[in-house]
């Protein structure tokens, strides 16, 4: 680069002899040579300093990123552990043993005489009959006979808040209005012809 810049200067002084030409630029124009030296040295040092600084900044950024990654990974791990453990608890709560026990604690019993109301023509299919008290499966000595040791931690008497709310909700609708919307269940899934 410096050769390229100083070439025109050399060409202008081309007339003297070879020896003069070699000596003269050194003595006659020392400033012209010295200034670029300082300038380029400064640039070089500045670039090197900049590179070192960038390197330091980058490595600090990367390693502080590593700390952030580690923290986030840890919290992600903890959260997924919590998620798994909660969903497993949910699965235990929704196990048939637990659901049946809860249903019976609300006074529900299994009916032995299934009957359906056909929505299309209002016809009653089957023989509707009041569910007998004997339909209780888990009563007395026959409390759940299908073991689930995981449920021993879940007290049978405790009713989760959501269930309590659900109960009052149902009770108030039934009392407040006779036009109760049909919940999803047998009636909707019952195969019935589309008549017009």
């Amino acid at each position, binding site marked *: 680069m410096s050769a390229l810049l100083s070439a025109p200067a050399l060409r202008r002084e081309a007339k003297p002899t070879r020896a003069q030409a070699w000596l003269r630029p050194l003595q006659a124009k020392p400033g012209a040579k010295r200034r670029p030296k300082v300038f380029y040295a400064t640039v070089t040092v500045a670039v090197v300093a900049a590179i070192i600084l960038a390197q330091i900044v980058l490595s600090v950024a990367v390693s502080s990123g590593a700390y952030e990654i580690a923290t986030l990974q840890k919290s992600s791990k903890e959260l997924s552990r919590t998620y798994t453990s909660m969903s497993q608890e949910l699965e235990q709560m929704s196990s048939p043993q637990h659901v049946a026990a809860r249903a019976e604690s609300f006074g529900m019993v299994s009916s032995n005489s*299934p009957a359906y109301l056909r929505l299309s023509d209002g016809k009653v299919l089957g023989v509707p009959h009041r569910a007998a008290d004997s339909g209780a499966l888990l009563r007395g000595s026959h409390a759940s006979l299908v073991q689930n040791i995981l449920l021993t931690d879940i007290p049978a008497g405790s009713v989760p808040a959501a269930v309590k709310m659900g109960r009052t909700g149902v009770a108030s609708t039934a009392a407040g209005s006779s036009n109760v919307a049909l919940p999803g269940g047998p009636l909707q899934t019952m195969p019935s012809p589309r008549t017009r």
Partner: protein
Amino acid sequence: MKPVITRRRIVITMFVVLALIALFVVRLVDIQVVRAAALNEQSSGKMSSPSTVYGVRGDISDRNGIILAQAQMRYNVTASPRNAKDFERTVDGKKVTVTPAQAASEIGRITGQFPNEIIDILNRALQENAESDFVYITKGVELATYRALDALDIPWLYFESAPSRVYPNGAVAGNLIGYVGSDGKPLAGLEQTANECVGSTDGQQTYERGADGIMIPGSNVVSKQAVNGGKLKLTIDADLQWYSQQVLAKQVKDQRGSWGIAVILEVKTGKLISVADYPSVDPNNVDGTADRFRGSLAFSAPYEPGSTMKSLTSGMLLDAGKASASSRVNAPYEITFPNGANFHDSGHHNPHLTLAGVMVESSNVGISKLADSLSPSVRYDYMTKYGLGSATNVNFLGESEGILRPSREWDNQTHYTTMFGQGFTATAVQMASAYQAIANGGVRIPVTLVDGCTKPNGDYVPAKTGDSVKVISPEAARGVVDMMENVASQGWLRDKFKIPGYRVAAKTGTAQQSNGQGGYSKSYIVTIAGMVPAGDPKYVILTTIADASLNSTAAVAPVFHDLAVQVLKHYRIQPSTSGASRLRLYY
């Protein structure tokens, strides 16, 4: 400036530079080559740590996706006995010294161990080895326990991951699913036979850590990729399975029976919807069940089926055109055949029976006289087509084929007893499968228990199903169902079979069982097998109780009835009583 001085300076500078370079090279070679191995070892011991990446064992679910078995991470609590000394903890800004005894009582309060127990564990380890750095305090604690222990911040307490298995529905289908050992190895049931689907492989990774234990970026090397297991889907319906188990258990207990089985089979597909065994096993607590009841008796315990066999024999007679429901036979209480075979019926009845009457009265003499028109080899062929004598398509762990000897090996007595279910053995599932053939217009679809496997990449691979076998003609099959409907509507247990609004077909069987000494014991295995609804059979139900106190099929009838009602309700089968069959039983 004189050139000589300049040159000397240059030489000196060069020499110094070269000397420095030489020094660095020596040092470099020393570090990188000579002491490389030792230094690497030293550094990696401090910085890098190989760790296991656990592959997740796949779920086992029922037909509706309800999870029956699931991987769960548990934690082993370990300690370094030699470091179990006093440590300081900051409480409310003040430093408090915690002694090992205090720490032990804190741990014990969470794990449920006595503090002395924990101190004993530490002391015993130190007695064996004064430098002991590792001992288990307790194994397999759950997440909440692990977190509570971790929050204690005891410097000599450590944890390790312990992949384990949890069964959210407990004993529901426990006998089928099986269980895994504490080391994660499958030990029973589908966990073992379907390991190809749900099994996982652990991987390994190495990364370098800084002094504070944080991973150095870019240093993570996965040397072995972990492979997760697939998801296994069963044909079982968890709700019906639970109901079957509960109803069966209740009745077996009331009857003081020794064991019981209840099988529900989908007629059009051959899929097992429920296979209940009593006693059942909760895979979360395997030790709570005796060893012999940890598998599935329905697959592994063959017994002489008894009179439920008469439906199969009637099917042969109808198919071969040797008899019809109205065929007459004089069936006295007791008989001695020309070949010397002698037996009698279980009770006295009108001897002038039709084939339908033979079924309703369950007359051994009647069925024997009629089925004598079929040669033993023909009957043997029919029996094998019904699926007797060979294991089902399920290939359950420890499944039995039952014992069915070739007809040429039948002795004079066996010649007849095979017609009414003695002299050979079959499993409950084999018999249910034979009834499925009758319910399905004579075509037996091999039973299935596993629906398929969802591979980790999301592909669903349906389980292999065997080829269907045409056993008897559709007309013969319909004829047998009609006769079985008359057993339910006209037999002595008719009140127990009644389901308002539905038609029921069933056959009872009170079978003698081997006493283990070449004879028969005094107690029976009582069975009811049948199908609902009788007009268009959709479900086969087979229920069995051994050694019931009633010693008759009345002991098992409530189970059959309740399961029939439940399956009809569960699958919203439309009530229909039209076209009920009423056959003539006597002449």
